[in-house]
């Protein structure tokens, strides 16, 4: 069972509970389904998803390790390509990274039950101070 962390705290995976299904980005062309969940791996090209944005409800980017920051750049790139659906980071992220995940465009983080036990809800919701970057960016595409 996974736990989904959002700004309101821990919750269930509503997407999956409502029957949502994930396909990998490379299989996207094989289906014409809508309201899709897509797994975008770290070495995939987010540009390939642009034509399908309309029928994607959620993109999930795995973090193989909390020290591998590619997911942060992928999220940012999806947002700058115009993706406005839900964006989820999943895997080994730690609570201190939640605010960074939010700032690059993720809406939520999916963690496993063990991590949720070791790093309980309050640790994820520690208020984030405003960062320097907000000074230099327009809010045009901010998530």
């Amino acid at each position: 069972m996974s736990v989904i962390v959002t700004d309101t705290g821990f919750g269930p995976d509503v997407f999956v509970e409502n029957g949502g299904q994930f396909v990998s980005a490379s299989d996207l062309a094989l289906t014409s389904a809508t309201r899709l969940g897509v797994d975008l791996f770290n070495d995939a090209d987010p540009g390939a998803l642009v034509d399908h944005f309309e029928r994607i409800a959620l993109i999930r980017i795995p973090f193989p390790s909390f020290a591998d920051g590619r997911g942060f750049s992928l999220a940012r790139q999806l947002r700058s390509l115009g993706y406005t659906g839900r964006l989820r980071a999943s895997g080994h992220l730690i609570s201190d990274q939640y605010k960074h995940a939010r700032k690059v465009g993720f809406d939520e983080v999916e963690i496993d039950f063990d991590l949720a036990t070791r790093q309980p809800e309050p640790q994820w919701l520690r208020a984030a101070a405003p960062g320097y970057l907000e000074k230099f960016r327009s809010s045009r595409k901010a998530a």
Partner: protein
Amino acid sequence: MYAYTDFDQAFVRERVDAFRDQVARRINGSLTEDEFKPHRLMNGLYLQLHAYMLRVAIPYGTLDGRQMRQLAMIADRWDKGYGHFTTRQNIQFNWPKLADTPAMLDALADVEMHAIQTSGNCIRNVTSDHFAGAAADEIEDPRPTAELIRQWSTDHPEFLYLPRKFKIAVTGSPNDRAAAKAHDIGLRMVRDDIGAPGYEVLVGGGLGRTPMIARVVRAFLPKADLLPYLEAILHVYNLEGRRDNKYKARIKILAHETGIDELRTRIEAAFERIRGDFTAPDPATVARIQGSFAAPDFATDREIPTIADPALRSWVDTNVADHRRADHAMVTVSLKPIGGTPGDATSDQMRALAEIAETYAYDELRISHEQNVVLPHVHRADLPAVYAALREAGLHTANVGLVSDIIACPGMDYCALATARSIPIAQEISTAFEDIRRQRDIGELKIKISGCINACGHHHVGHIGILGLDRAGVETYQITLGGDATETAAIGERTGRGFSYEEIVPAVERLVDAYLEVREDETETFLETYRRVGMTPFKDALYGSEEEVGRAA
């Protein structure tokens, strides 16, 4: 001096609180040691051979008397009464306890300083020319740019978990004193055809085990595009830099494996995509940053006495450089006393420097990447008084740029990664060349020493570079010649087999003797001579009649 805004102040305080909380969560088990490590590193705390080390940022090397006094206080209270200035315009305290570090960070925040991103796989403390704002050859003061980059890169949410560390240097002069070509990104301030200021952007320089000189990715970048362009470079690097091998993870390897032209194409594509996300920095912010680096109110109409005292004259010849104003001078205070540890200063010396800066130098101090301290603006009339005060503090060594002004990394004395000692080698070389007349006859000569292949002592760009290795349990020193960190950057070439600890200092002496022998006259420096005559006379001096000058050391 850049003065913190309320925002800056709140940010560093919040950061100290967050770190205190991380330490607590490490102790209660919420964070594993692995998970804690990047946070510790990004707050400047590094685990050394004997203890923790706290590396404090001195952004672009600029500080004032009050800040220097606080560093002295920290050295007394939490360390052993001294600090070590590094080649990256940081100061390191070698003996703090983990539990004390949040209090140390608070003490830094009290004087608008921090240790943020001085370690870890993130964008590190931005470095710059230690003569910024004072040098005669300056196109523009690089510090406002460096401050802008400091702000942009601090806690940048996208770039805290890069493949490897990332270093940026900015220089505002055609004479590059910031070693821009030896950085992941080097920025050189230039003007375009119509005189508008901008940057030449260099990418992929770095030392370490695969030394490379940075190459140009953009010949002219308008000033307003700086942050989105930097962001584009980092974005491409974060996604494409290698993560399978930490020795191949720097952007220099990506540039090398991808090719600079292909890398440029990818950077430009990312730049086009994201530039619209940036607003031009708010003019009030820019004006405030610019204004905080305004020149001091220079004293005028003072009589400048001629200098008679020979010791003073000798110091002026080596340690004093021309300021952009004829009645002022730039003073370099050598932290390389004969037989001392390069870059070390005691708390008393730090206080003396603060006092001298406040009294004679418009309260400005700089740390140079050559591990010396600079007083960038001193009225020439005050040079005798400054010299006398430095002498009192034991800071009057007259050797800047000479053979005993050596850069050395901490090496085996402190560093967990070291394969050989480096500080004692520096001490012995400086002792061997103790005679100042001999040093002056030899002239400009930069010796740089690293205690392992990671090259923190920048040996690749030393005129004479020394690399300490471990060969079957025995310290062995390899020599390189002809390295250069300036605008004419070059990586030094290996001479041949290495030397033992006992042999290395005599070997350096033989190199210097060979130079004196073959130079055209005393105006031809070691580096110029090497470039003219090549390796042969130096090899002969090192290896003499040894039949085989082996490649393997």
